[in-house]
């Protein structure tokens, strides 16, 4: 399962483009040059072709959760180099650099939040942290978030973006697939909803565990989703891959995801799903005031 190769190679260019000094960005799909502020306003969806560019975890919190509703938990949990892993660089050094560069302690942010007043447990992965790879910390934080869902009887939402399990943690990272899936099974046994949202790219161990276990599985358009990475498959079979292979649309056609929602409509659709699942709204004073003052009511 060498899905890691392609993804780690894919991190650098995109990250550079996201830096604030790059005021103009080029769409990877249609080559359109777009002003960054414009892109920001359009939720990082290409204005010309609709391509969903990779977006920071913080942006998902901003666009999907009600303003100021997010309360992060377990932000302090950090990775350790349990295996003293050393290849051309040491995992320990890589962690240090990545924490410094991303301002995050690992590849997933977890917390409580509200979606149009529906309280949820919300997890969002970030591909910029070592390719969104799942090591012990991602596994533990997803497990803890699932436990919070169970304890507070809240729906669980996980947004995935990951190159797979984190090789530098060897078998420990592999076991996180079992760990997260086991807690999600427990959540499911208790009748609590879990919504999985898959974004570009999600492959390997994350796809083969919690991403594929949602009561409902949603994908953003055009995302790469698969078990083995396309390069590995190409190498193995020695032939070119069919057009559109391993995209959201491909998975939808083959019956493995339930629905594709664009970023623009995601919040509205999530709200309807939460309503359907019978979740309870929790009006804050502010939101009540807001709806009372709403001219539409």
């Amino acid at each position: 399962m060498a899905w890691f190769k392609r993804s780690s190679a894919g991190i650098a260019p995109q990250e550079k483009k996201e830096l604030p000094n790059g005021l103009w960005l080029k769409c990877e799909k249609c080559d359109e040059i777009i002003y960054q502020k414009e892109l920001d306003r359009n939720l990082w969806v290409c204005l010309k072709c609709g391509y969903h560019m990779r977006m920071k975890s913080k942006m998902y919190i901003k666009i999907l959760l009600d303003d100021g509703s997010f309360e992060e938990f377990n932000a302090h949990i950090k990775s350790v180099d349990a295996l003293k892993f050393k290849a051309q660089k040491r995992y320990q050094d890589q962690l240090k650099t990545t924490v410094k560069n991303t301002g995050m302690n690992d590849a997933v942010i977890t917390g409580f939040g509200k979606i149009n007043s529906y309280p949820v447990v919300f997890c969002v992965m970030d591909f910029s942290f070592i390719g969104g790879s799942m090591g012990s910390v991602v596994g533990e934080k997803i497990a803890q978030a699932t436990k919070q869902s169970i304890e507070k009887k809240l729906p669980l939402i996980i947004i995935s973006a990951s190159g797979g399990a984190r090789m530098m943690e060897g078998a420990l990272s592999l076991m996180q697939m079992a760990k997260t899936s086991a807690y999600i099974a427990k959540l499911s046994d208790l009748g609590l909803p879990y919504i999985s949202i898959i974004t570009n790219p999600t492959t390997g161990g994350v796809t083969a565990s919690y991403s594929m276990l949602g009561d409902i599985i949603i994908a953003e358009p055009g995302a790469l989703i698969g078990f083995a990475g396309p390069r590995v498959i190409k190498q193995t079979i020695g032939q070119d891959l069919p057009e559109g292979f391993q995209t959201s649309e491909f998975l939808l056609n083959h019956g493995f995801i339930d629905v594709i929602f664009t970023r623009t409509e995601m919040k509205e659709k999530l709200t309807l799903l939460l309503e359907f699942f019978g979740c309870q709204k929790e009006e804050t004073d502010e939101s009540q005031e807001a709806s009372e003052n709403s001219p539409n009511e």
Partner: protein
Amino acid sequence: MDRFVLEFERPLIELEKRIQGMKEYSRDEDVEMSEEIAKLEEKALKLSKDIYTKLTRWQKVQLARHPQRPYTLDHIQRMTRFFIEVHGDRAYGDDPAIVAGFGAIEDEHVVIVGHQKGRTTKEKLYRNFGMPHPEGFRKALKAMKLGSKFHRPIVCLLDTPGAHPGIGAEERGQAEAIARNLFEMSHLPVPILVIVIGEGASGGALGIGVGDRLLMLENTWYSVISPEGCAAILWRDSARADLAADAMKVTSQDLLDMKILDKIIPEPAGGAHRDHDKAAAILKQAILEELEQLKQIPPEILIENRIEKFGKMGFWDESYT
């Protein structure tokens, strides 16, 4: 018998051949050579200890892949009173890379699922080198669910170089099939005993590897990716697999140190490939002992313990600094 010999086994194999030759000569020609033979046997014993107690991780990986190593069906054949293999996932097809069925080990009725490799070229292709497609994982789940319905414990034998990476596998939901098994196995209300008997590579192994107890035969490996795969990524050279095996720490002893493994099952001297009968007998004994203990635990506690067991896995830093 001509057989495959690993480089580091060669001195021992050659010495053993010499001893065998002397014994035959002594018997056929009626020549007294017992003293010399005894000396050489002593030497062989020492050599064997030298070789097998100092195996590097990479050498252990090679033993785990030894072409004469006993595979799932070799063990099943030797351990069970009867075994009825079942085929297919009742949706798409049958995957010969995974064997699933029902049988009895002495008086213990069990479901057995395991990866199956082939020995001849033809068999290897038929078994797809022990690399499952989605229907293999789904077949295994079908058998495990049936076992659970009739309150029969499940024994999983892991021996795969990984789940198959291919177009068909992706089209039929390789990721979903593995994820589904992790989900279902985590809450099946019967004892699940998982044993790595050869190679345990990544999701392809874990896909039938969630259980109450994890055991590994001594000379096996289990990790998130094969040493070659890891080397290809990190050193851009799959020939550095020996370095990757050390970096990822893939052996049974390593997994014991990581607190993933519950127990190492010893192999016959020189490795399981040198004595299939003995290897199977040791395995059988280990299975019976573990099941005896697991059967005492009520189902709901079994499931709770299983989830918590995986919940503890991993290392992280929770300090606020």
